[in-house]
């Protein structure tokens, strides 16, 4: 287990999804991955496969047609995972707030860990957000690896979930 954790910390892979953005933030993500800002020197690699990713970078205010894909992609990323909302329109809806085909921000659908403001957010901000996300990712993996008993009185699954702050995703009383 130690083995995997250390890799996860050193090279988080990101999955990028455009949920209806204007492209402005997407090209800034590309620029952040490119040679000048060079996120890849931290081992951050853009992958197309949700099953291999740790960080979910989302842009766009979530349009009506892309919301199912968003939730689907989110649920395919294995735990632990961190979600970053890049851009003003992703965090609140931005200029698109209130338009008829728009759902006003991704936190209506999936829990968000890091919000990045700006229209468009600069590559520097995106790098900051990913560094922050690494911290959160490490905390999350630590929490997930704490031992617990399935039976007996040490800790129930419900307790564990609420300790991990995942309780709102799974309904239990």
């Amino acid at each position, binding site marked *: 287990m130690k083995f995997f954790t250390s890799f996860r910390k050193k090279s988080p892979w990101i999955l990028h*999804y*455009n*949920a*209806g*953005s*204007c*492209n*402005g*933030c*997407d*090209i*800034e993500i*590309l*620029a952040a991955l*490119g*040679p*000048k800002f060079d996120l890849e020197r931290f081992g951050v690699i*853009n*992958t*197309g*496969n949700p099953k291999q990713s740790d960080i979910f970078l989302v842009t*766009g*205010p979530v*349009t*009506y*047609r*892309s919301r199912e*894909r968003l939730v689907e*992609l989110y649920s395919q990323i294995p735990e632990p995972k961190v979600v970053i909302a890049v851009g003003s*329109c992703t965090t609140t809806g*931005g*200029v*698109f707030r*209130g*338009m*008829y*085909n*728009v759902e006003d921000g991704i936190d209506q659908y999936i829990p968000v860990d890091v919000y990045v403001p700006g*229209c*468009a957010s*600069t*590559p520097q901000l995106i790098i900051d957000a990913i560094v922050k996300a690494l911290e959160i990712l490490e905390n999350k993996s630590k929490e997930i690896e704490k031992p617990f008993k399935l039976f007996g009185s040490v800790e129930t699954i419900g307790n564990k979930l609420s300790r991990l702050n995942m309780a709102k995703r799974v309904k239990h009383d």
Partner: protein
Amino acid sequence: MKKTIQIPLGSQHISLLEPIRFKFECENEKIIGVDADVGFVHRGVELACTRSFEFKQVGYVVARVCGLCAITHSLSYTLAAEKLLGYEANDRIKYLRMLMVELDRIHSHMLCLAHTAENAGFEALFMQIMADRELVMDLQEAISGNRVQFDFIAIGGVNRDLTPELTALIHKNLTLLSEKIDALIGLFNNNWSLSLKYKGVGVLRLEDAYTYNALGPLARAAGLATDVRVETSDFPYEDIGYTMILESTGDIHARNFVRLREIVNSIAMCRNIADNLPAGEILEKTKGKPKGEAVVRVEAPRGELFYLVRGNGGNMLERVRIKTPTFSGIPAMMEVFKSSEYADAPAILASFDPCMSCTAK
């Protein structure tokens, strides 16, 4: 046994920057039919322009239709609104606007070239072009204050002026860039493995370009001489050294070359503008409310952008119709896919430089 197989591409895929879904009908490796779903990014900007925003704000809203050609969107809207207000900009404003549009074209074309290289399997070339592109991004940031959404154009003028230091910076960066572009032209011309991926792949014939109303670099690569920069008189493009770039083969290679040579042309135009900037105010007061109907066409990096604006003399507009380049390019694109190999599909798609957030608005 079934003869054909269906292969989906998208909506989320490593080679796609934006969500679009293709359904390829394939016979072995050959694509024989295409179906595209382009509506993933539909937000409803056209309606919001007439219901939620006043005509002075709309210029900044339509910029958010597309981040890559944001400046052409706000420019077209502003031109239309200025026509309705009966205002004509002075020469300095026109030149500054042209400068930003051409810089935007350079960076957009470079992004497309990088993307085509990546989708053909050349990761190193992608990185190299992205590094060179930062020269233009720095210029844009220095001139307008933001790297992507610069909100440079306002009704009645532009929001920032060019200082002598900026002129020097423009010359410095563009000199550096033009050397790199020359090297790229050599590379795209002579590299053997690039030519395997690009030459003769994804051909659009001239007749098809006419029938399907192709536009922009897609049409010019096929030999169709159309460019809105010479078909409108809103801007004095002839004065600053515009030449139309035409290729004839219509394949990915030709499209890359149209882009590369247009970058060279745009660099020359930007230098001319920086040297010969006329004197004048940069932001003038406009009076009145828009009334009547105006149409405007502007050449965006991907082709012709069309705006129709109708106002009734109030603060709110009656109709803003946005026709974006990719929207009318899609029929021609679907034609090119037919009868090409499935393995080439990502590279062909990238060479069209499709912009979905433009298409779906």
